[in-house]
């Protein structure tokens, strides 16, 4: 009986050790294989402005209370129009900074007089919620100098971007961290 027991134990421990070795080897080869494919540089999420359709999901899908997506402005592309279709409601009462005339629901665009007849438009990122209403307006009738980007001082770089999962045009992709923005080009 005792002999049978010890046989049992040694068989069990042999099985145990064998499985342990196999698991170790499996983990090792998994590590090796994955290591051969590891990214050398960090990546971050970014919106491709040429794919973005300004659906408004960036405002609601981001895991942050106030979305990390903001409107950015490439000034070199801007026409500095007095009647900016990114700034003004399609049917404004007056061409002034009254809230009822503005397209932006949070009043995040700062309009400043430069010289006759030019006005500059800047984004207050603390107010911007990334809804893209101004982007739509600017794309429709303007130069398209306003567009949405993920701001990396705010983005928490989730393993899977919640906005990317919901984006109807699949415009959000991973980009190298040393070139973290896709800015529109003049032209």
């Amino acid at each position, binding site marked *: 009986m005792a002999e049978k027991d010890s046989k049992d134990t040694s068989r069990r421990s042999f099985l145990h050790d064998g*499985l*342990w070795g196999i698991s170790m080897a499996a*983990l090792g080869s*998994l*590590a090796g*294989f*994955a*290591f051969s*494919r*590891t*990214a050398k540089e*960090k*990546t*971050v999420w970014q919106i491709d402005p040429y*794919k973005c*359709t300004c*659906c408004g*999901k960036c405002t*609601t*899908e981001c*895991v*942050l209370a106030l979305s990390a997506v903001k409107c*950015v402005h*490439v*000034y*070199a*592309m*801007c*026409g*500095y*129009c007095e*009647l900016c279709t990114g700034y003004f409601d*399609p*049917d*404004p*009462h007056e061409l002034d900074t009254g809230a009822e005339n503005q397209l932006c629901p949070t009043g995040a665009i700062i309009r400043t007089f*430069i*010289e006759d007849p*030019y006005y500059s438009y800047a984004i207050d990122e603390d107010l911007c919620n990334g809804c893209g209403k101004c982007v739509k307006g600017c794309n429709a*009738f*303007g*130069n*398209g100098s306003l567009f949405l980007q993920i*701001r*990396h*001082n705010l*983005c*928490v*770089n*989730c*393993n*899977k971007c919640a906005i990317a*999962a919901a984006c*109807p*045009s699949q415009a959000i992709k991973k980009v190298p*961290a040393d070139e*973290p923005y896709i*800015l529109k080009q*003049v*032209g």
Partner: protein
Amino acid sequence: MRRKDLLMTILGVILCLTAIAAGQTRRFPPPDFQSGYEMPTTETPPPDADFYEYIAVAVLAAALGVGTYFIFVKRSRKYAWALMIFSLAFFGFWRMGCVCPIGATQNMAVSMFDPGYAVPITVLIIFLLPLALSLFHGRVFCGTVCPLGAIQDVVLLKPLSVPFWLESSLRLLGYLYLGLALVLAITGAGFIICQYDPFVSFFRLSGNFGVLAIGGAFLIMGVFIGRPYCRFLCPYGILLRQLSRLSKWKVKISPDECVKCRLCEDSCPFGAIRKPTGEASSEELAARKKILAVLILLFPFIVLAGGFGGSQISGLLSRSHHDVRLADRIYLEESGQVEGTTDESEAFRGTGESIESLYELSAEIQAEFSRGSWILGGFIGLVIGGTLIKHTIRRNSDEYLADAGDCLACGRCFEYCPRERLRLSKLQEDKQVLYG
């Protein structure tokens, strides 16, 4: 007011015409400023340096080491608890729970099947460290380091015991969740472990209502049922459980020998303590042998049945993929079965890609899903068959043991053991002798 309306309309028409004529080129040339105005440049704040991620990896390695020391050498719940709170603060609230090894499972799966997908080295290490440790010291990660475990551990106030059969059955959910997450990650449908992570929205102190509600439900449940997510759902816990069963050193309730005093019997809120079994009667053994023989014969059929069952939900599963849903929608719109468009279908039509290629892509993805759901179903069959066989084989033991797979290495049972108390008082005496 009317005049302005008219002006706007005329302007709009002119703009539209020029836009059509010029395509997407610039409609208004940049002004030639006379006032000396300088154009500002667009600010591009950079992301955090990689540095923080390496810190997180280093802290993870250190925490695993310290946790092992607290559980295996110090055998102290108090120290383990302190480490757990630190981990909750650091990995949970400071690092905001992301990236965690649980979610990293999906990245690893994608990288196995997609040569174009690269896993960051930090994610690879975060995924592997707890698994490697589990082959030596069991689930120290679960008990002392995992922030998702920690947040459930702190709310556990009135633990109720879950019957063994229920516990075993509910655990299947974890296997199902793991299999589903892998299939959805590999096919490119999404990362459901991250999307439905119940606690990450608490760590970030923001989140949508659905996820907050799931998290809240888990925490309320967690007051009475010890760590429900860890025990019944956590997909990474499944991997740790299997590897821990082989671990070199296992958590022991008694520091030396079990005196079978039964004091620890109800100390584990996670149902991980196994009572001594005693010797089995020969009738019982014979009966078990018969059941085992039947089960082994049935085993291939259970796996096949699982696979077949899985294949039946392939169509449903594939609808979780964006492109398959889009192709469905476009088909409905094209064939006139629905009115209007969605954001998705409009965006697709805006790209100018051909509908045929979308249908082809969708068919390819659905074929992948069909293979994947056979494998998923077969895997579930395998788990069910394996669980039945495992419960049929009788393991004799003559002491109270922490089940190596179930034990989360929290250290709660230690202080219930009189042998442990003896050990501690001896330590105390030795200290007095040494230091007066």
